[in-house]
């Protein structure tokens, strides 16, 4: 489904070149769920932005469903079937939740269809469908609406950047079910989740660890996870913030 080959990326920061992604190669087969984890600042969000096309790599190639999409725009990749839920969702003055879900679906959705997506992320649809996606929404509400827009896209590859952040304990379990369901309902649909949460790692087929811009581990969950949890080096390197609710923070 998705294949990254030798991706490198840098930014210029105060006149200095700063390597953020260093020679990362990763492949995500169809129908699989991969969780990318690693310490803060490790480059996970940057990797997601490279996949969505928001950033372009300095070198390396991105393949999606067998095609080289390295030079494709964000729009082209979206239309080809890549969906992306931002770590920090964007707010819009005047645009309503309904508008956003409709745009995401690419169809003239009925209000009740749109409500369905909101219900799946645990929002009482009636209260939210006409709300503006503006500063009046709480962080957790906004985050769930962001996830709902990605569900509405129904894309072949869905990328979620820390979907659990800001989501309360009660909704967390629900979120796990949403991801599990996504895999069951549509065959061959792939999911990439960036997360620090053990319970999300537990539903992964594959786990990848990104540290200092490099992939330091990658493979089936059963192989990677035991080494990750409780290893002293991981404890040292992963100064993971405490998400507090909704399970243990691994990284």
């Amino acid at each position, binding site marked *: 489904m998705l294949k990254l080959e030798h991706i490198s990326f840098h930014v210029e920061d105060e006149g200095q070149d700063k390597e953020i992604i260093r020679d990362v190669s990763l492949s995500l087969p169809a129908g699989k769920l991969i969780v990318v984890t690693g310490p803060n600042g490790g480059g996970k969000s940057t990797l997601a932005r490279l996949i*969505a096309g*928001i950033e372009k790599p300095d070198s390396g190639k991105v393949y999606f469903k067998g095609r080289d999409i390295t030079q494709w*725009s*964000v*729009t082209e990749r*979206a*239309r080809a079937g*890549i*969906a*992306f839920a*931002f770590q920090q*969702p*964007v707010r*819009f*003055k*005047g*645009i*309503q939740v309904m*508008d*956003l879900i409709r*745009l*995401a679906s*690419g169809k003239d959705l009925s209000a009740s269809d749109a409500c369905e997506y909101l219900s799946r992320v645990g929002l009482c649809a009636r209260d939210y469908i006409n709300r503006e996606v503006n500063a009046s929404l709480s962080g957790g509400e906004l985050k769930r609406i962001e996830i709902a*827009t990605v569900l509405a*896209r129904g894309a072949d590859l869905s990328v979620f950047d820390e979907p659990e952040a800001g989501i309360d304990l009660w909704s967390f379990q629900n979120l796990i079910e949403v991801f599990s369901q996504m895999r069951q309902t549509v065959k061959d649909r792939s999911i990439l989740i960036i997360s620090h949460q053990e319970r999300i790692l537990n539903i992964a087929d594959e786990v990848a660890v990104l540290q200092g811009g490099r992939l330091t581990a990658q493979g089936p969950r059963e192989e990677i996870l035991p080494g990750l949890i409780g290893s002293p080096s991981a404890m040292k390197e992963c100064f993971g913030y405490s998400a507090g609710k909704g399970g243990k923070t691994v990284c």
Partner: protein
Amino acid sequence: MLKLDEIQKRLLAEVADLHTVPEGAYNIRSNSQSAGRKSTANIEIIPKTDVSGLDIRIKPGTKNESVHIPVVMTESGLKEAVYNDFHIGADADVTIVAGCGIDNCGNQDSQHDGIHRFFVGKGARVRYVEKHYGSGSGAGKRILNPVTEVYQEENSTVEMEMVQIKGVDDTSRTTLAELASGAKLAVRERLMTHGRQSAVSAYVVRMNGDGASADVVSRSVAKDESYQKFDAKLVGSAACTGHTECDSIIMDRGRILAVPGLEANHVDAALVHEAAIGKIAGDQIMKLMTLGLTEQEAEEQIVNGFLK
């Protein structure tokens, strides 16, 4: 309906959402003539004799009635000034829909200057909607210079919605309001300019009595080479609260000038002005592009939402 051609009907639909003769009282002005007029038991519409315009008298206590006074112009080169006075009786509760649509296919400028005065009685409540719209491919300009004066007695409420989204080349809007104690004024202005258009909007709101309040909010988008000026002045001469806000998106080579003006003549006058001008945030465009929209489609959605 009436003696209107297709273009005139289209303009009416744009400025007043009218597809047929409105309910309640109305006067439809088309190319400087009245194309239809109706008074009701509580709302009387009388043509002025000294100048062009109307006296509209709304009886005290009139509830849930409406007045439509749209204007359409389709003759190139027409220039008119129209004086409409609204006398709204105490405790009335009414909706007034004005608005002007100009279609100019000719080479001469078409201009409509509407001078509206509102005398709002004690405890009355008025909702006023005014839309401006221009169309036609002629080189002649479409010019609108509305003047609105609002005199509010004790505890009256006026809500004004002013919309100009398309096609008006030149507008200079002046709004003056005088508020007695307990009177409330809320203005929502939505404006989009494009091409080489220019739009100037100036407000002076005087709060003269205790408990008066004013809230003037403008949302605007300046595209292409267009120019906008938002000049909002609040004068608080009693224990009152006032707020003005100018929130603008600037695009292309547009220019926007926001001029805050607050004058407090009383220690309990609380006045606030907010102004923000900026281009569309890059992450907003990115987000919509990740939903499959092109950059241009994303901009359109953001602008439409902002002006909704």
